[in-house]
């Protein structure tokens, strides 16, 4: 081996390396760009899951736009009030009220919905919905293969034993990914409702009451009992379907008590110590599971 050659090679690379690093060091000083430290701070305050609910591709983009003033501090849908406050504090802007929303399912069908045919394909709602209008007789019901559960970026949805997705309101941020993923999200099977919504109607059927009763034993039958029972004029049967006006609803639960179909649930963070989706009453929850089964058996007999 030629020792000189090795020395030359090492020397040549060393000279090149030192020279280029010197140039880079000078350039780093000379072309230094001041980055607004607030961008980093806002980014740290944001949830960082890049859900895109605010309309920006990433949390970094929204942080930049928030600092630039293009985006309101409360634009983060997922973060809600806490993040809005934190961002407003960093930016010195007036804290603004975040309209916090959570996802709610307007269907109580599950195993109480009648199947039109036995579906044996891919376990995906999107695939099933394409096959002859879906495996349910009801065209508005939850198909129950959990596309929303898989899509949820916050692990806030789970299928219960009745095959319905239950929203964990502790984790739900209202990003709306599930609504977009649900093949029936367009017809508000899943819908974003105000965080403080105290009740939710577990039916979304728009066809004739007789037809929907054939398809499901948990549907709204438009009996208007809830409308009469409501002391604050907050629930109305519109187009043969009970609809809650959340501006007026006080969460007294009168409609939940009176509904013969059990298709109105207590819901949301608004109720006393009710932090979970539909714990307590109605059809969507696990607590009322046994009553449901009894009801089905009674109806059958």
């Amino acid at each position, binding site marked *: 081996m030629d020792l000189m050659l090795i020395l030359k*090679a090492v020397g*040549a690379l060393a000279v090149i390396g030192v020279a*280029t690093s010197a140039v*880079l060091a000078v*350039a780093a000083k000379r*072309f*230094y*760009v001041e980055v607004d430290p607030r961008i980093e701070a806002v980014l740290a305050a944001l949830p960082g899951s890049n859900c895109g609910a605010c309309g920006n591709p990433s949390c970094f983009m929204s942080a930049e736009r928030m600092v630039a003033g293009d985006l309101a501090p409360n634009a983060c849908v997922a973060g809600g009030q806490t993040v809005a406050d934190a961002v407003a504090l960093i930016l010195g802007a007036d804290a603004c009220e975040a309209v916090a929303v959570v996802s709610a399912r307007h269907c109580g069908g599950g195993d109480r919905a009648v199947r039109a045919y036995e579906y044996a394909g891919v376990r995906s709602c999107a695939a099933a919905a394409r096959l002859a209008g879906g495996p349910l007789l009801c065209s508005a019901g939850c198909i129950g293969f959990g596309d929303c559960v898989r899509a949820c970026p916050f692990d806030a949805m789970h299928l219960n034993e009745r095959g319905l997705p239950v929203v964990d309101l502790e984790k739900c941020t209202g990003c709306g990914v599930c609504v977009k993923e649900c093949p029936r999200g367009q017809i508000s099977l899943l819908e974003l409702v105000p965080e403080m919504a105290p009740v939710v109607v577990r039916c979304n059927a728009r066809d004739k009451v007789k037809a929907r009763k054939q398809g499901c034993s948990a549907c709204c039958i438009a009996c208007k009992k809830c409308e009469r029972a409501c002391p604050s004029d907050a629930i109305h049967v519109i187009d043969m379907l009970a609809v809650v006006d959340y501006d007026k609803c006080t969460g007294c639960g009168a409609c939940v008590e009176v509904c013969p179909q059990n298709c109105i649930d207590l819901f949301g963070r608004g109720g006393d110590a009710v932090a979970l989706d539909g714990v307590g009453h109605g059809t969507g929850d696990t607590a009322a599971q046994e009553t449901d089964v009894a009801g089905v058996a009674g109806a059958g007999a």
Partner: protein
Amino acid sequence: MSSVSQLALLFVGAALINNILLTRFIGLCPFFGVSSNMETSIGMSLSVIFVMVMSSTATWVVWEFVLAPLGVGEFLYIPAFILIIASLVQFVEMYLRKASPVLYRAMGIYLPLITTNCAVLATATEAAKPGFFKMNLAITNSAGALSLGEALVYTLGVSVGFGFALVTFAALRERLELAPVSRLMKGAPIAFITAGLLSLAYVGMSGWFGL
């Protein structure tokens, strides 16, 4: 010193006849990565032209005054050139960030990617290392060793050819977005077919001027 016609031939040969993207298939990843939109493809082309010319100059100087005199070029040229090109791209990135934030934003992830772009390394090597690329040998007739001027013209030709192909392809892809393409072929598949047809057009030029 080479004549003007020789330089012109060098330029045309590098830009069209031996187009780096469409006849030699070097640097295909930006060809598909940045070509979905005209604006970024133009930004990418400009920065490739800039980086290629700069890096060829630098590698030529390093070859001529460091590697060749020491006799270590034959085995050291790849690490040395990579080192130089990487630092250059870093430098360009810093400069762009300061001078043109818009372009910096448009280039996004692709600017650092030029660091390891094979097209840049290939061109810089061809321009600096004598006899590395046969076309240069055929034109310059001097054992393939390009003078600094020839190296610059050659690199300019390659990078302009790169930009030309990239922008043409981006324009085609923008049109394709609006064309009634079958659902199965939409997006990448039709882009691959288009690239193949475009490449055929360029390959058709091979043999001109004996290149």
